[in-house]
């Protein structure tokens, strides 16, 4: 780089950071050009000194969903910049963001389809040969079609919270309407299902009412089982920024281990599973002392009780037991009954159970009782990956709702997500085994009629899929028992991320994964590819156009900036190429099934239009679900069945490009499409981010806090009592330690991307088992020693450390799950929450021996 250019780039970079630090983020001529792939010219200097083109995008990694501007020169990405116009991150990126270009450029990208001819080579790094797309697609379609026509209970698709929205929508339509199958579930089952079930139970609509901007106004932060420093770094930075602007702002970190998120916070370490008791303790304090928000309770809440003594999913037949079939049943209750049920959760009892001092519990409870304080609760996997994960979500809402601290600026309860589009795709387009798009479910007749109307299907066509399909753990359990013939996945790495891999990878006496015909869409060779019969090379991130929906309901588009390598293709193309082969000859009524479902975007052997126009066309159909007025038959059903589908209203496609992302519901007001920062809150105009249109259309004005929970029956969310029930397994003499798993900053999820980025991998090159000093000493283990970790499920080797990046208390150990070399999920239990079916990755009893 010539000196003048170097000085220019450096001064530009510094000016941008200075503006961001000073809170005056601006766009700089010549360095932060207009988006949309426009030729930037060189407003601030020589045109050769800047990127040829800059594209708007969204980070590929976690659920924060940071906006990114991608600079391209000669078809190569040469710069990344936090997008100051994307309100989710306001120009900030974490250190993974710096490496986004390298995400595409590692040497071992998959560039041609691969086929395995000899199943005995499964589980090895050999056995795959190169093939043409035609051969690979024909083979996949032949196997899928044969299974579909013979016994479609023996096929499944495992989708993803990393698959772009339009691709996920097309996939759901193919599987649910094309194949008439609910044998599809996303990897979000492993991370978000407990949050989803609780949202639906309490509010009858998925996803948070609040937004990230609430961080800037909160007085108190409570992190429940959430290591935001490592897993949601840009939000954690925003949280720290808030604390630094006002020293009165408090942060309480509740968890079973001490993490970097604990630094600067009051850290309350509790015994595994007792978080429910702590939340009930807060509620008990509020109701026993009449310190709840009486107006909020009177105007907005009802009370329920639920089924108890649910046991745990040790046996494959657990879901079929009467107890679990009825586990979601609730009964109407009252504040008085609720008070009596939480009464046992005194400070003293809860302290004894949880290990948190009574005085600290009282301090926490008094925060909720203080009507002047704005409290933001955040939680992630400690709450969701829990044998009572749905219950724990309920319990956090119980505390916030009783205190009247929800859906208000700076004040709410916020479930964070771990993937870039767990919300936008996995949850919103219907890739769960029980769902249809836009919060609709297969078991509800009105929902099926509505979906048929959007998809122009004959009335009753979807009745065949009215029974829920199998959830993820059931799919893998059944596959390991030889009950599957066809399995297809994309944008995930199940051979690393699933619990109980000892069973699911056929390492025990089961060998189902070997016999099942497995298809994997991937960008890099992963452990899952080693079990695949066909590997289909996928375009990733900005090699194609797509959309992500993040944790705060923000939908953003990422533009295609560069071409994919070799013969790699985007997922939507791959899915539809298989779909047209499988549906060849199939009819819906008198019409060709494939043309009926996908003729609006596909003709002959390819898309009708380019990627932008294809995405727009798919989006416009998907948008009908939340904009029923776009189609008369749909609008009639929305009115007749009182579905209130505009509660998730989405905007026309171009609005997301123009606005660098929008928070749904998006309302058209005076010709402008405006997002919603606070759902159910009519405390201000839509222009200021309030849900003015939603409340006016469906809700009631003049209620406490100007709120109206218009999606919930009777407009009253339920405070549902959920008791403490112990973890499925607890340490004993044979397995004396709790094993907690999780994520660390540099390596994202299963490491299939980040292990290929040299610096991220050099910074965190291997998974380590974090162990308490005293425990290490008692076991004769020094930092750096190899140890063997064994549970009743399986065993693995790993290097131990007493480093303080993670500080487990005595009797607990922690390891991240990214490493294929230390496949920690070999030993993790596959016990799941009975309501959400989400596995508990946080509480496996293990023993530790020096290897």
């Amino acid at each position, binding site marked *: *780089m010539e000196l003048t250019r170097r000085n220019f780039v450096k001064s530009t*970079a510094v000016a941008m950071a200075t503006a961001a630090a000073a809170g005056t983020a601006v766009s700089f001529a010549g360095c932060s050009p207009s988006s949309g792939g426009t030729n930037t010219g060189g407003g601030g200097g020589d045109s050769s000194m800047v990127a040829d083109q800059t594209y708007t995008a969204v980070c590929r990694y976690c659920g924060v969903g940071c906006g990114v501007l991608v600079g391209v020169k000669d078809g190569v990405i040469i710069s990344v910049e936090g997008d100051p116009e994307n309100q989710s991150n306001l120009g900030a990126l974490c250190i993974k963001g710096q490496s986004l270009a390298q995400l595409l450029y590692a040497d071992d990208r998959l560039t041609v389809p691969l086929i395995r001819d000899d199943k005995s080579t499964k589980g090895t790094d050999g056995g795959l040969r190169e093939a043409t797309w035609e051969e690979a697609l024909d083979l996949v379609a032949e196997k899928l079609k044969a299974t579909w026509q013979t016994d479609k209970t023996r096929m499944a698709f495992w989708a993803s919270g990393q698959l772009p929205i339009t691709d996920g929508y097309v996939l759901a339509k193919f599987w649910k309407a094309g194949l008439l199958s609910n044998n599809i579930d996303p990897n979000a089952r492993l991370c978000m299902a407990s949050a989803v079930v609780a949202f639906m139970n309490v509010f009858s609509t998925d996803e948070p009412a609040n937004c990230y901007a609430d961080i800037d106004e909160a007085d108190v932060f409570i992190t429940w089982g959430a290591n935001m420093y490592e897993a949601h770094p840009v939000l954690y930075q925003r949280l720290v920024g808030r604390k630094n602007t006002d*020293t009165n702002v408090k942060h309480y970190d509740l968890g079973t281990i001490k993490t970097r998120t604990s630094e600067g916070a009051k850290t309350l370490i509790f015994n595994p599973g007792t978080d429910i008791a702590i939340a009930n303790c807060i509620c008990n304090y509020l109701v026993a002392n009449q310190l709840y928000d009486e107006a909020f309770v009177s105007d907005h809440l009802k009370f329920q009780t639920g089924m108890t003594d649910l046991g745990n999913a040790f046996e494959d037949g657990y879901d079929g037991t009467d107890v679990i079939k009825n586990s979601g049943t609730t009964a109407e209750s009252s504040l008085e009954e609720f008070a009596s049920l939480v009464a046992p959760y005194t400070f003293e009892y809860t302290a004894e159970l949880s290990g948190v001092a009574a005085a600290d519990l009282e301090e926490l409870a008094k925060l909720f009782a203080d009507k002047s304080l704005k409290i933001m609760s955040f939680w992630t996997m400690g709450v969701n990956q829990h044998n009572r994960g749905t219950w724990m979500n309920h319990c956090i809402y119980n505390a916030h709702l009783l205190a009247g601290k929800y859906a208000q600026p700076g004040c709410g309860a916020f479930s964070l997500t771990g993937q870039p589009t767990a919300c936008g795709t996995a949850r919103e387009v219907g890739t769960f085994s029980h769902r249809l798009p836009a919060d609709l479910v297969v078991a509800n007749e009105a929902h099926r009629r509505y979906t048929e109307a959007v998809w122009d299907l004959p009335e009753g066509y979807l009745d065949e899929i009215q029974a829920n399909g199998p959830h993820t753990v059931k799919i893998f359990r059944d596959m390991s028992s030889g009950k599957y013939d066809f399995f297809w996945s994309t944008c995930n790495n199940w051979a690393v991320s699933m619990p109980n891999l000892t069973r699911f990878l056929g390492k025990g006496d089961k060998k189902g994964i070997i016999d099942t015909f497995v298809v994997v869409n991937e960008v890099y060779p992963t452990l899952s590819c080693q079990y695949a019969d066909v590997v289909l090379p996928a375009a990733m991130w900005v090699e194609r156009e797509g959309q992500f929906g993040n944790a705060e309901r923000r939908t953003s588009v990422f533009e295609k900036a560069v071409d994919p390598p070799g013969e790699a293709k985007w997922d939507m193309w791959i899915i539809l190429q298989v779909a047209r082969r499988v549906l060849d000859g199939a009819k819906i009524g008198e019409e060709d099934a494939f043309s009926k479902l996908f003729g609006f975007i596909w003709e002959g052997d390819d898309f009708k239009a380019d990627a932008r126009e294809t995405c727009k066309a798919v989006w416009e159909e998907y948008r009908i679900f939340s904009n029923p007025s776009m189609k008369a038959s749909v609008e009639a059903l929305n009115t007749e069945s009182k579905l209130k589908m505009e509660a998730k209203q989405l905007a026309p496609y171009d609005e997301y490009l123009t606005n660098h992302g929008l928070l749904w519901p998006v309302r058209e007001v005076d010709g402008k499409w405006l997002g919603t920062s606070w759902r159910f809150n009519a405390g201000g105009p839509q222009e200021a981010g309030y849900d003015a249109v939603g409340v006016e259309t469906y809700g009631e004005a003049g209620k406490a806090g100007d709120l109206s929970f218009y999606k919930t029956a009777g407009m009253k969310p339920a405070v549902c009592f959920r008791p403490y029930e112990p973890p499925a397994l607890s340490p004993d003499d044979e397995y004396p330690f709790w094993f907690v798993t999780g994520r660390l900053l540099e390596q994202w999820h299963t490491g299939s991307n980040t292990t290929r980025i*040299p610096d991220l991998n050099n910074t965190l090159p291997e998974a380590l088992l974090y162990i308490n000093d005293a425990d290490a000493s008692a076991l004769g283990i020094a930092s750096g020693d190899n140890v063997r970790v064994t549970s009743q499920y399986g065993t693995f080797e790993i290097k131990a450390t007493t480093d303080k990046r993670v500080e487990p208390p005595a009797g607990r150990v922690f390891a991240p799950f990214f490493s294929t070399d230390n496949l920690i999920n070999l030993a993790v239990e596959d016990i799941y929450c009975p309501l959400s079916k989400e596995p508990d990755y946080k509480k496996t009893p293990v023993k530790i021996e020096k290897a």
Partner: protein
Amino acid sequence: MVISSLIVESHAGRTAEVRSALAGIGGVEVHSVHGNSIVVSIEAASLSISQSISAALVQIPGVAAVQLVYANFEDDPQIQAKLKGAAS
């Protein structure tokens, strides 16, 4: 050179300590301080080295978070090779 700009957020009361530590790291230049936010640039021969430096910033005592604002890596050897490949 690979050039990037970042904001290093310190915990309250530790900004001077963090700034001093940053000033001692090769390739890092401190440009300004806004409350607890310290604006720095990193210049390095490769993206990998640049990332090593930025990753190390996280480890400095008193640092709460490191946020990347802009990174230009067109001089990174891997990117240069791709650019030359694209041009040929």
